[in-house]
């Protein structure tokens, strides 16, 4: 799932400065689940924007909306009526949703309210961690299902760096586990340490041509 985080209010206000009527559009999928851009967050941001502009005595009227998925052109179409009445759109979706809205409503300025951060999973209530960097060349089969590309701070492929801290945490953050210590422990448990002893060639960074595009075989 895509994980995002809301931008500071100041930055969002800077983008919409001068617009008097805006649409704040939430997205009901990934960013709702990661508490960044769902219906609840649309309400909070809108309320904050109203409070801030009334505090300054500027005029701002806000239309609130939240659709199922902003990354689908057809679903974004649902916003058309509301978009017609506003001067600008603040999208609370990931970068994909923002661009989809911008493509569909080309004539209106679209501003991102979130920073799209990574693909991850919920670790606990309200805590998400990055798990995949979509390298296009998955190697989880030989690392015990633990991705060194994303979970090792340096993305090393042949084992830990010398920075592993006492007990097996990462050089850059004692709170984070060294991915290679985790990989070692899991492979050891599975009796597959030979996988870790193998040499792995430098990674193919062209596994996916960027910008990526996939055309699935037609069934």
């Amino acid at each position, binding site marked *: 799932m895509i994980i995002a985080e809301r931008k500071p209010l100041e930055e969002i206000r800077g983008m919409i400065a001068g617009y008097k009527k805006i649409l704040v559009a939430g997205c009901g999928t990934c960013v709702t689940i990661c508490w960044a851009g769902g219906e609840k967050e649309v309400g909070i941001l809108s*309320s*904050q924007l109203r*409070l801030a502009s009334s505090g300054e005595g500027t005029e701002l009227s806000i239309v609130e909306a939240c659709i199922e998925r902003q990354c689908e052109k057809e679903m974004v179409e649902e916003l058309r009526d509301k978009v017609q009445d506003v001067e600008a759109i603040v999208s609370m979706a990931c970068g994909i949703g923002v661009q989809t809205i911008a493509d569909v409503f080309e004539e209106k300025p679209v501003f991102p309210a979130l920073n799209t951060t990574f693909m991850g999973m919920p670790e606990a209530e309200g805590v998400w961690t990055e798990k995949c960097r979509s390298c296009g060349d998955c190697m989880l089969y030989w690392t015990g299902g633990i991705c060194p590309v994303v979970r090792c701070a340096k993305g090393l492929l042949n084992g830990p760096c010398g920075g592993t801290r006492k007990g097996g945490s990462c050089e850059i953050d004692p709170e984070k586990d060294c991915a290679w210590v985790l990989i070692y422990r899991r492979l050891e448990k599975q009796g597959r340490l030979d996988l870790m002893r193998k040499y792995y060639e430098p990674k193919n960074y062209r596994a996916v041509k960027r910008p990526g595009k996939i055309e699935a075989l037609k069934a």
Partner: protein
Amino acid sequence: MIRGNNKIVAFCCENSAYLAADKAGRMRLHYPDNVRIIRVPCVGRVDLIHILKAFEKGAAGVLLIGCHEGACQHLTGNTRAKERAAYARNLLKEVGIDEARLRMANIAPDMAQQFVREIEDMTEKTKER
């Protein structure tokens, strides 16, 4: 422009603060009449948007009053409310509202005086607004 109404909105847990308010009345512990109590089943029910809307409406201050820590009938309601209040204070700061206008307090059902003190404190704090 949102006009100020000088009211204090107190979200009161019906297991503690609401009862303390009733008791204050029975004891005739007179306190400022600008407080508006909204009864909630647990202070953990209070959502960020409730707090923000109260300020949008022009409230001078917002209080979340729940049970003492460790004594929430729903275990985590009051601690969640505390975290939420801290988060809401950041949201308020972002819009230029004095964070002191939002406060989370913990009281027991029989603590009428404490309830009155909370109201008086907040009234005092928000007076020179």
